[in-house]
């Protein structure tokens, strides 16, 4: 057991190597893959350090969701890039491009950070030392206070429930921010119906009548993008050597079957994390796992198949219900037990589904909130469209384009 530091160091080196790759790779997609590698290394590190619940969250957020967000962002921003054949020599780009002065500054800064990290690493307490008082309090208090055998859950949802509450609502604020920023095609809502007042008269003028539903807009958009409006659902009928691009949304039959087989397992695994509250897990990792499952379905089957599930109107309501449940669970402690976030649910015997008392209720509400919130964020960004007009020669936007939509 004393040899575990080798695994520690291997994981740390892995993380560092991934981080270096992120900076070093000039290919954006490659850099994102390296970022995913870093997240994977962090996950392994958390497993080695004995924090499986953090590892659950990290593997989905750091290794999957964050790289996906970056890929989406890169995909949305990428325009036609002219291939610069002169600078394909990577060496020249890496070593000849930057001034020497700046390189020295970078070396100095890196050395400083490295020294700081090494000092911090050597200063870490090792396992033979006595635990700090806070840790001992959590370890000894989890069982009598909450009847749970998982001190991390007791800390996150019990002793420091206020912090988790704050974090959750920070996440909620972020979700609302992303939603507001990405929702560009929303119809204007009037108070007295003034936005629909002249529709009939307008239809007499417009030939053909303007489509108002988002489906029609989407179909028109597809035609504009040059994609076939009636794309096949799956690419299975395509010839063997047909070149890209594929018009079908779904992936080939191999990927679809694999996802179909693995999905129930992943969903059960995610729900297990939250339902068995006395083992490592909890609402946040479970919510992240659910997001991973939805992303998997989206990747394999295409957007049309998940649209019924990830409809914003449904998800927003679900998320708000989760937030309301958190507030309710925490606030109920105030009249019943005399303080906010106090445990007011009777404690069942340990190692049962309800053993955590309030912890479990908080954790389940957190699952709803986080799962819905993260899904909203990812799909808001996925559904984002170019909403600006292309620049013409003078750099002026095309006035007649759909830039003002």
């Amino acid at each position, binding site marked *: 057991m004393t040899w575990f530091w080798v695994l520690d160091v291997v994981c740390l080196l892995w993380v560092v190597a991934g981080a270096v790759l992120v900076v070093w790779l000039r290919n954006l997609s490659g850099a994102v893959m390296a970022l995913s590698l870093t997240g994977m290394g962090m996950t392994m590190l958390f497993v080695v350090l004995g924090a499986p619940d953090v590892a659950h969250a990290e593997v989905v957020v750091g290794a999957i969701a964050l790289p996906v967000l970056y890929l989406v962002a890169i995909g949305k921003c990428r325009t036609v890039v002219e291939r610069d054949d002169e600078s394909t020599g990577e060496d020249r780009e890496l070593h000849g491009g930057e001034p020497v002065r700046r390189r020295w500054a970078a070396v100095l800064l890196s050395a400083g950070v490295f020294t700081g990290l090494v000092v911090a690493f050597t200063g870490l307490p090792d396992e033979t030392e006595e635990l700090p008082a806070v840790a001992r309090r959590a370890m000894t208090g989890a069982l009598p206070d909450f009847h749970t055998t998982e001190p991390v859950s007791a800390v996150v949802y019990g002793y420091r429930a206020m912090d988790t509450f704050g974090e959750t609502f920070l996440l909620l604020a972020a979700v609302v921010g992303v939603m507001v920023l990405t929702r560009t095609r929303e119809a204007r809502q009037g108070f007295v119906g003034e936005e629909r007042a002249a529709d009939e008269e307008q239809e007499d003028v417009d030939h053909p009548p303007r489509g108002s539903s988002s489906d029609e807009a989407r179909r028109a958009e597809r035609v504009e993008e040059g994609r076939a409006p009636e794309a096949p659902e799956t690419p299975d009928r395509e*010839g*063997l050597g*047909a070149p*890209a691009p594929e018009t079908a949304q779904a992936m080939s039959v*191999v990927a679809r079957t694999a996802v179909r087989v*693995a999905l129930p397992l992943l969903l059960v695994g995610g729900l297990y994390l939250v339902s068995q509250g006395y083992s490592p897990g909890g609402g946040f990792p479970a919510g992240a796992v659910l997001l991973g499952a939805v992303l998997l379905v989206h990747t394999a089957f295409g957007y049309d198949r998940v649209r019924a599930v990830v409809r914003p109107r449904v998800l927003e309501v679900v998320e708000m219900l989760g937030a309301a449940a958190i507030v309710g669970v925490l606030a109920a402690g105030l009249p019943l037990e005399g303080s906010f976030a106090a445990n007011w649910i009777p404690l069942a015997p340990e190692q049962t589904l309800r053993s955590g008392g309030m912890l479990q209720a908080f954790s389940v509400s957190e699952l709803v909130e986080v799962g819905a919130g993260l899904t909203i964020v990812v799909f808001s960004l996925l559904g984002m469209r170019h909403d600006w007009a292309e620049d013409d020669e003078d750099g002026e936007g095309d006035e007649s384009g759909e830039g003002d939509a």
Partner: protein
Amino acid sequence: MRTGIAVALCAVGLFFSLSGTVGVWRMPDLYTRVQAATKTITLGALPTLVGVVVASGASPPYLTRAMLVGFLLLTLNPAASHALVRAAYKTGTPQWRHAVSRGPGEVAQRRAES
């Protein structure tokens, strides 16, 4: 005895993981590299999992988890490799110059000619 079997299984897994890594390093193009990388799962991770089960004496927590991980690896790893290589092939990622087959479009073209 049991420890010996477990160590042997883990050694087999480690060997194939290592050889897969060497394969990724040494193979000439993406397609052959992916082919080497998939081997680290089927022949590298699975014997190690079996070794873990053997070492822990097939107690339910270890056995079920190892089976779960093994099942997921066996399902998702080929699918992920397939999707990766398919995307690479479709977008015309260059092949090794001595490769027998050529890029996308040529297969269909050849079939149309014959």
